[in-house]
C-alpha cells in the first residue's frame, strides 16, 4: 500500500481529543432514553405489526406508557410484567393495549423476577441475532465475497419489487453490495412503516418486510453468482434504533449509521440523536453489521478542499462513538467522498492526499468512498470521465467500500443501464489498475504529502477546540458542513425522556462487547 509519511503523534493527539469529546457527550445524555429506543426494545421482545389505522404496535404501546407517565422506567418491564401477569406473549400484550383491553401499570410484583424474565426474553432475541450473524459468516465462508474495493450499488425505484429486479440484475453484473435507498421523508417519520411497499419517492420505504424480501432475493442471487451479496439500508433518522433491530433480525449486512448526520442534515434533536446512535450501534455491533458513516454528505454543502479537515475530525469522533458502543474497528466504515471541484488544477492530487491520509489514519476501517455527486452535471459523457477518476482514486488509495458513481447523477435515480455502465467502468478500472497502489510512492517533498500534513494539522486543531467547547456547541457554531443547529432545538426533541432510577433495559448490557463468538476480522 502506498504510504504517506504521517506523524503518528499528531494522529494520537487527534484521536485522544475525539475520545474526550465523545465521552463528554455520553455523560451529558446518560440519564435519558428516547421513544424509539424503547420501541426498538419492544421490537426485540417480539412486538410487531400495525393497527387498523396503520400505527405500529410499538408506537401504540410506547405512547400508552408515555400517557401513563411510565416510560421513565423503560418500556420493557411494564410489558414483561403484563406478560407474566396475564400469561400473554409480548404481541398479545400490545394488541390488548391497542384495543384498550389492557392498561399497563408500574409493575408491582417481584421486580427481580420481572427483570429476570426480561433478561431471559432478551437473551432469546440476542440468540436470534447471533444466529443471523453466524449464518452470514457461514455463507461468506462458503460463497466468498467481492474483493476490495467492493462494488456498492443503490436501487431506488420506490417499489420493492422493481428494486428486487434491479438488485438481482446488478448482482449478476458484478455488484458486491446493494443498498436500498429510502424514500424521501422517511427519516422524519417517528414510526417505521409496515409491510411490503411500492410507493416511495426517490427511494423505497424501509420496512421489515421489505428488508426480508430483498434479503431473500439477494441470498438467491448470491448463490447464483457464487458471491455473498451484502444488503444495506439506512439506520438513520428518527427511528434509528428500531431500524437497527429490524436489520439485525433480517440479516442486513451494512447500515448507514452516523452519530451526527441526523442533527446536521435532518435537524433532529442532538440529544435524541446521540442516544439513538448509541443504542443502535450496540445492536449493529452485536449483529455483526458494518456501519457506514455520513461525512461524505458534508462535502455536498461545504467545499471538499476547504473543509477536508472537518471530514477527518468527524470521522475520529464517529469512530470513538462507535468504539464506545462496542463496534470493532473492522466494522466502522467511515465515509468520505470524491467531491473535489473538477475545475481545480491538481484537484486529483488533493483528493488522493485526502483519501490516502484517511486510509492511513484508519488502517483497519472498511472505508466507504462516495462518488462525485455535487459536480456531476447533465452531461453524462463527462460524468463517465469523472467517475473513472473516482474509481482510479479509490483503487490507488486502497478504499474498501466503493459506492458506484452514476453518469446520470444529476438527472435521475439510476436506470438499469446506468448501473450496468457504472459497474463496467469500475470493474475495468479496478482490474487494469489492480496493483497500482503497491507500485507508486508519493514524493516526500511533494504537494500530496504537504497537503496531507496540512489537513492533519487542521484536524488536530479543530478537535482540540471542540474538546474545549463541547460537541454540541461546535455544531451550533457550524463547524461541520457549514450548518448550524441548536442544542435544544430540532425534531424529535419531545421523544427524549429522562430515565427514572428504576429504569431497566436488558439489551445494552446483553449486547455489550458484541457476541462472544463474533469473528469481526474474518467476516468482513
Amino acid at each position, binding site marked *: 500500500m502506498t504510504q504517506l509519511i504521517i506523524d503518528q503523534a499528531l494522529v494520537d493527539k487527534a484521536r485522544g481529543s475525539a475520545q474526550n469529546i465523545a465521552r463528554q457527550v455520553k455523560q451529558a445524555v446518560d440519564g435519558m432514553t428516547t421513544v424509539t429506543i424503547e420501541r426498538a426494545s419492544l421490537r426485540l421482545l417480539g412486538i410487531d405489526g400495525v393497527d387498523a389505522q396503520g400505527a405500529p404496535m410499538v408506537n401504540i404501546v410506547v405512547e400508552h406508557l408515555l400517557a401513563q407517565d411510565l416510560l421513565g422506567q423503560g418500556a420493557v418491564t411494564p410489558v414483561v410484567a403484563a406478560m407474566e401477569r396475564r400469561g400473554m406473549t409480548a404481541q398479545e400484550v400490545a394488541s390488548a393495549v391497542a384495543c384498550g383491553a389492557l392498561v399497563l401499570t408500574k409493575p408491582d410484583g417481584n421486580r427481580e423476577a420481572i427483570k429476570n424474565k426480561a433478561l431471559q426474553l432478551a437473551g432469546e432475541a440476542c440468540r436470534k441475532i447471533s444466529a443471523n450473524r453466524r449464518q452470514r459468516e457461514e455463507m461468506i465462508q462458503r460463497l466468498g465475497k467481492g474483493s476490495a474495493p467492493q462494488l456498492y450499488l443503490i436501487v431506488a425505484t420506490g417499489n420493492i419489487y422493481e428494486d428486487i429486479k434491479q438488485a*438481482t*440484475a446488478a448482482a449478476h453484473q458484478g455488484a458486491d453490495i446493494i443498498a436500498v435507498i429510502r424514500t*424521501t*421523508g422517511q427519516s*422524519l417519520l417517528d414510526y417505521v412503516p409496515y409491510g411490503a411497499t411500492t410507493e416511495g*419517492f426517490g427511494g423505497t420505504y424501509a420496512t421489515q418486510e421489505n428488508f426480508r424480501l430483498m434479503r431473500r432475493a439477494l441470498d438467491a442471487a448470491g448463490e447464483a453468482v457464487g458471491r455473498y451479496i451484502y444488503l444495506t439500508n439506512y439506520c438513520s433518522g428518527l427511528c434509528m434504533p428500531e431500524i437497527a433491530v429490524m436489520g439485525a433480525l433480517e440479516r442486513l449486512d451494512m447500515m448507514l449509521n452516523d452519530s451526527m448526520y441526523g442533527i446536521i442534515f*435532518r*435537524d433532529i434533536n442532538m440529544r435524541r440523536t446521540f442516544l439513538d446512535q448509541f443504542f443502535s450501534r450496540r445492536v449493529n455491533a452485536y449483529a455483526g453489521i458494518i456501519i457506514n458513516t455520513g461525512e461524505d454528505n458534508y462535502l455536498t454543502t461545504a467545499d471538499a478542499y476547504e473543509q477536508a479537515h472537518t471530514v477527518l475530525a468527524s470521522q475520529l469522533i464517529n469512530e470513538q462513538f462507535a468504539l464506545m458502543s462496542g463496534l470493532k474497528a473492522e466494522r466502522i466504515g467511515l465515509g468520505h467522498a470524491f467531491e473535489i471541484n473538477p475545475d481545480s488544477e491538481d484537484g486529483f492530487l488533493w483528493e488522493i492526499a485526502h483519501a490516502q491520509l484517511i486510509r492511513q489514519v484508519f488502517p483497519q476501517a472498511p472505508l466507504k468512498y462516495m462518488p462525485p455527486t455535487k459536480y456531476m452535471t447533465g452531461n453524462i459523457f463527462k460524468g463517465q470521465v469523472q467517475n473513472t477518476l473516482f474509481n482510479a482514486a479509490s483503487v490507488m488509495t486502497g478504499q474498501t467500500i466503493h459506492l458506484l458513481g452514476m453518469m446520470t447523477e444529476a438527472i435521475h435515480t439510476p436506470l*438499469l443501464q446506468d448501473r450496468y455502465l457504472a459497474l463496467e467502468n469500475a470493474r475495468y478500472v479496478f482490474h487494469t489498475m489492480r496493483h497500482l497502489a503497491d507500485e507508486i510512492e508519493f514524493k516526500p517533498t511533494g504537494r500530496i504529502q504537504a497537503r496531507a500534513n496540512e489537513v492533519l494539522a487542521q484536524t488536530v486543531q479543530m478537535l482540540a477546540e471542540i474538546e474545549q467547547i463541547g460537541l454540541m456547541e461546535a455544531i451550533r457554531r457550524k463547524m461541520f458542513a457549514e450548518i448550524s443547529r441548536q442544542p435544544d432545538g430540532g425534531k424529535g426533541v419531545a421523544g427524549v425522556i429522562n430515565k427514572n432510577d428504576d429504569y431497566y433495559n436488558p439489551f445494552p448490557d446483553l449486547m455489550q462487547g458484541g457476541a462472544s463468538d463474533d469473528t469481526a476480522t474474518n467476516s468482513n
Partner: protein
Amino acid sequence: MTLQQTQTDAACLVRPYGDTLDDGVVQFSFTLPLPHDELACEAARAVGEAMGLHEVSVSCSRDLGQGFSFFVLYGKMTTSVDVSRLTVNKAEFETMKKEAVDRFIQEHFGRKLVFVGACIETDAHTVGIDAIMNMKGYNGHKGLESYHEIQAVNLGAQVGSDEFVAKALELNADALLVSQIVTQKNVHLANLTRLVDMLEAEGVRDKLVLVVGGPRISHELAKELGYDAGFGPNTYAEDVASFVVQEMKRRERS
C-alpha cells in the same frame, strides 16, 4: 404576464448534424426488457425506426441479465424541425444588478420587501434555495440576504406547506420562494399543487408573488401549476429579485 415569443418570419428548418449539414445523425441508447439475442437487436433497431429514424444501426448491445438488454444506436433523422415556429417560454423581466434592485425598491415601494423561502414538503435539498437566499450566494453572485432593501427569510428544508403559509402570513411576505429538487415519480407536482391550493384557501394567493425554482423546473411548468414564474438551473439571486420587483410594480399599475 405574457409569454415572450421568439419568432422569425421564414421557415428555418434544422436537423441534427453529425459531420455534414443535414445528415441528421442522432445517438441514442436504451434498455429493452428482452433477453439478449439477435431478435432483441432487431427490436432495438425497430425502436429506432419507430422514432422515425433511418439507417438505424445498433453499435452496441449488452446483456444486462434478468431478461434485459442494453443498446447503443446511431440513426439518421430525415424530417426537420422548423425553428421559426418555436417559442421560448420564460418569465418576462430584465435582470438588474443587486444595486439596481435595491434602488428600484426604494423608488417604487419605499419600504423593505419581505421574501420568504423554503424547500417544501419532503424535499431536503437546501443548496439551491441557499444559493438564492443566503448571504454567500452562488458562483460569486450574492444572495438575497445581502440586499439592503430585502428582508430574506430562509426557512430551510422539509418545510410543510401549512408551516410555510403560516410563516408567510406572520411575516407579511411580499414574495414566496419555493424550491423543489426531487422530481422522482413527479412528487414535486403534488407538493407544488398542495401549496397553491393552501394559499388560495387562505385567500392570499393574489397578494403574493409566488415563484418556484429547481433544476427540473421550467417557467412553463410553473405557470401551469399556478405560479407566477419558474426558474431552472443557473439562476442567481438577482434574477428572481428582478422578477419579483418588476412583477410587483406591474401589479400595482393594473
